[in-house]
């Protein structure tokens, strides 16, 4: 049972990484745990619990978690003057 539970959580982790790469959702799912996963309507854990220990093969493709650089707009507004000045002072590189 322990084994099945572990596999199920692992599967969830991978699903989560693929579908919702943001930090917030990842943490939420981890706290939801076993019952949270069942409540979410995921069929895979139930299947695994019934059949016991099942090998889960790692996907061939690497799991890519996109960490978008969070560029805040208010920061960009602050930089406009300096960026304009940069063009005026270094016209040969722009």
């Amino acid at each position, binding site marked *: 049972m322990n084994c099945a539970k572990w596999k199920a959580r692992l599967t969830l982790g991978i699903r989560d990484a693929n579908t919702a790469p943001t930090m917030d959702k990842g943490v939420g799912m981890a706290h939801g745990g076993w019952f949270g996963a069942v409540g979410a309507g995921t069929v895979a854990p139930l299947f695994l619990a019934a059949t016991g220990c099942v090998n889960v093969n790692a996907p061939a493709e690497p799991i890519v978690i996109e960490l978008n650089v969070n560029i805040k707009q208010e920061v*960009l507004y602050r930089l406009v003057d300096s960026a304009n000045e940069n063009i005026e002072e270094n016209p040969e590189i722009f």
Partner: protein
Amino acid sequence: MTSTRQIVRKTAAALLAAGALAVVAAPAAAQGRDPAYAAARANGTIGEKMDGYLGFVGSPSPTLKQLVDDLNIRRKASYADRARSQGVTIEEFAFTQGCLLISRTVAGEKYQAPDGSWQTRGAGPARVDPRCPSAG
């Protein structure tokens, strides 16, 4: 009398047209550019990317690649200086600079649209990233 007035009117019109042409043909940033760089911009071999650096639209000649690589290195140095004094990352500063540089492209030049594709600047405004501060 009428002929003099006509001449004056024609001269004024010609002067206005010449002034308008000069404004279109020589944007402020164009001064001081290496002729090879200016030519590559004008013929669309290179373009302005969203990240604040120059990119190649096709495959460049070794000479052009060297020239553009050098410009990008000097751009990065300027971004690094200004990012440090503003307390932001180089990427943040470079992105802002990219917004401005794309907005400042002139008709016929290439720029990178928010979807990553190369676009040729037309008569209208360039398509900039929604995060860009509206260029003033």
